[in-house]
């Protein structure tokens, strides 16, 4: 909207101040991240890990072990042996998932290996319990090849009601997810693909509503062709987006069916190849600037550099453009810069700006839902059901350009999303335990609330030591 947009300003200041504002925001953010890192190391040493196993049955004396363990337990095993599905009734399997990683793409750290990935997986397990009431086992594994990884996860699956794949490099994450989904009779989820894509889709649905657009008519550019964006593209197509108005752009430019490297993609990254064929560049070829001109929606999940998307890119888009700059920790364009360049709606991956696209809004509820339904799988329809419910919740709470999605404080959304997921599983015929939407909701609410009560009770009883102050816990000898 080059004609109608005002001269670029940042927070009311003239445009020439933009680089300085940009630098100071980046520097402040870096300083804050470093301080949090030092404190996290100190606390990790103090608590020595973030989760532990806690009994869920009474133990009055050792005599009770005749029931919980041998000889009584043998009958429980026999029952499962004669009907394997009973493992969901008679053990904790119904509520237990594995968080599996090979540590090949952890946060922004890259390939740090399984041992170094463990603190991240512990944190994820804590989130699963706190937000979703899910018992999650952190399980970084050493696997030399994707085949070995798949075989290992298949081998441990009998203990779990679901598998959460985490922080696995693209493109091998696609093949691993597809193969495990094919082999296992339980839901397998890769958060970096599905969780991020689902929360992105939720944000897009509401952004379209706010700007009176339909997914069937828009032109969309996806900048970045990694785990999240390739799934976002797939989900947009499933929602009826015209493939010939969808351009995926990577470092080499628009991904079209005749690009020089397309045969190489067929061999090395068939998922990207598939999108190249389906969209054929969305009617564009060439570079990002060429693709984004006239687009309604720009979804960037690419490089954490605030100059990746330039104000002129935003200005070249259709009127009231929608810009999601989702790279972490630094978005592809600072929200103020995008807004000044005419963006009607801006979302990022960060909690310190409005409209955080956050997979934590999705994964605890999705797992709560599929576990309560004892679902056999987790098809895209489930992912879309979660996205729609998330979008609907923000809508019901009052949609605006700065309230596109629920925030993490709006915890009421979680059981609603879980119920929508459970209901979708029943509709798709993949629920081992079909219940009504109200029953799924009540159950999710109860299990989610219980986690909070549990954590607070442990703290009250001083079984969890209170968090030491920064002064009481020196940081300088850590690291």
């Amino acid at each position, binding site marked *: 909207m080059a004609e109608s947009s005002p001269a670029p300003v940042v927070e009311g200041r003239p445009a020439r101040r933009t680089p300085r504002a940009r630098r100071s925001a980046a520097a402040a953010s870096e300083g804050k991240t470093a301080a949090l890192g030092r404190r996290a190391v100190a606390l990790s040493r103090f608590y020595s890990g973030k989760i532990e196993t806690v009994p869920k049955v009474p133990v009055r004396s050792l005599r009770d072990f005749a029931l919980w363990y041998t000889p009584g337990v043998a009958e429980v095993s026999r029952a499962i042996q004669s009907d394997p599905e009973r493992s969901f009734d008679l053990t904790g399997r119904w509520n237990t998932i594995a968080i599996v990683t090979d540590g090949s793409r952890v946060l922004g750290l890259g390939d740090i290996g399984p041992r170094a990935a463990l603190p991240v997986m512990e944190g994820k397990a804590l989130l699963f319990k706190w937000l979703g009431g899910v018992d999650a086992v952190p399980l970084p594994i050493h696997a030399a090849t994707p085949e070995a990884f798949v075989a290992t996860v298949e081998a441990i699956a009998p203990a779990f009601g679901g598998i959460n794949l985490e922080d696995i490099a693209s493109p091998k994450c696609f093949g691993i997810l597809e193969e495990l989904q094919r082999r296992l009779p339980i839901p397998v989820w890769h958060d970096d693909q599905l969780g991020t894509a689902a929360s992105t889709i939720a944000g897009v649905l509401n952004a379209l509503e706010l700007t009176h657009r339909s997914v069937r008519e828009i032109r969309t550019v996806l900048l970045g062709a990694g785990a999240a964006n390739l799934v976002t593209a797939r989900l947009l197509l499933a929602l009826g987006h015209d493939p010939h108005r969808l351009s995926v752009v990577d470092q080499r430019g628009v991904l079209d*069916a*005749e690009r*020089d490297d*397309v*045969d*190489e993609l*067929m*061999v*090395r990254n068939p998922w990207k*190849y598939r999108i*190249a*064929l389906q969209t*054929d560049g969305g009617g564009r070829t060439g570079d990002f600037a060429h693709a984004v001109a006239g687009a309604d929606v720009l979804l960037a999940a690419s490089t954490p550099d605030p100059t990746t998307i330039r104000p002129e890119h935003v200005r070249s888009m259709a009127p009231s453009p929608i810009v999601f700059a989702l790279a972490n920790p630094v978005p592809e364009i600072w929200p103020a810069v995008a807004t000044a360049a005419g963006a009607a709606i801006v979302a990022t991956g960060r909690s310190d700006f409005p409209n955080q696209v956050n997979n934590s809004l999705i994964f605890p509820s999705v797992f709560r839902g599929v576990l309560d339904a004892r679902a056999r799988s987790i098809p895209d329809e489930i992912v879309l059901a979660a996205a729609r419910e998330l979008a609907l919740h923000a809508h019901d709470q009052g949609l605006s350009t700065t309230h596109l999605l629920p925030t993490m404080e709006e915890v009421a959304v979680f059981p609603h999303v879980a119920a929508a997921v459970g209901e979708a599983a029943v509709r798709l015929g993949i629920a081992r335990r079909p219940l009504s939407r109200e029953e799924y909701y009540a159950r999710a609410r109860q299990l989610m609330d219980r986690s909070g009560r549990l954590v607070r009770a442990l703290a009250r009883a001083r079984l969890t030591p209170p968090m030491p102050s920064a002064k009481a816990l020196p940081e300088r000898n850590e690291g």
Partner: protein
Amino acid sequence: MNASNETAASGPADTPTVPIHLRPARPADVPALVPLLMRLKRLNEEFDPLLKVRDDAERQADEVLRAQLSDPKAVILAAEGVGADKDKVVGFVRALVRERPFYTPEWEGVIVDIYLLPLYRRRGVGEYLLRETSAALKAKGAGVVTAEFPAQNEIASRFYAKRGFRPIQLLHARSL
């Protein structure tokens, strides 16, 4: 070249309707064939460092194609698109009839290049190309049809295996 190669690919019931028109290549096609041949060689490069494409490969492609277009032992077919892609060469096959002095059948038709632009794949075109090429090779006296492709190319391997091909000779290599 058998006249049947001139027909568009929409034949009787057992022939799937394919969105191409297959015909013998002509010298005028060479500028359009070279980029396709180069795409195939660059794909092969992905599979093995000993298949690294030469700096002068484009000029070589031009020369080889021009020479073989007048070679009675070569079969070069051009696949043209239909509809919006009418008159655009979207794929090609290059095959050579070679003598087998010690084995029977004594003439072998070797498919050395077969390439289709991505949007024309998985629509029965490859199968059609293979069938027409086999017929053309047979017409030139070949009693067996073979295909050459990089050992690591599993997609090609599956394509031919599905159509009754099996490995009969292996080519092992090491640098000197």
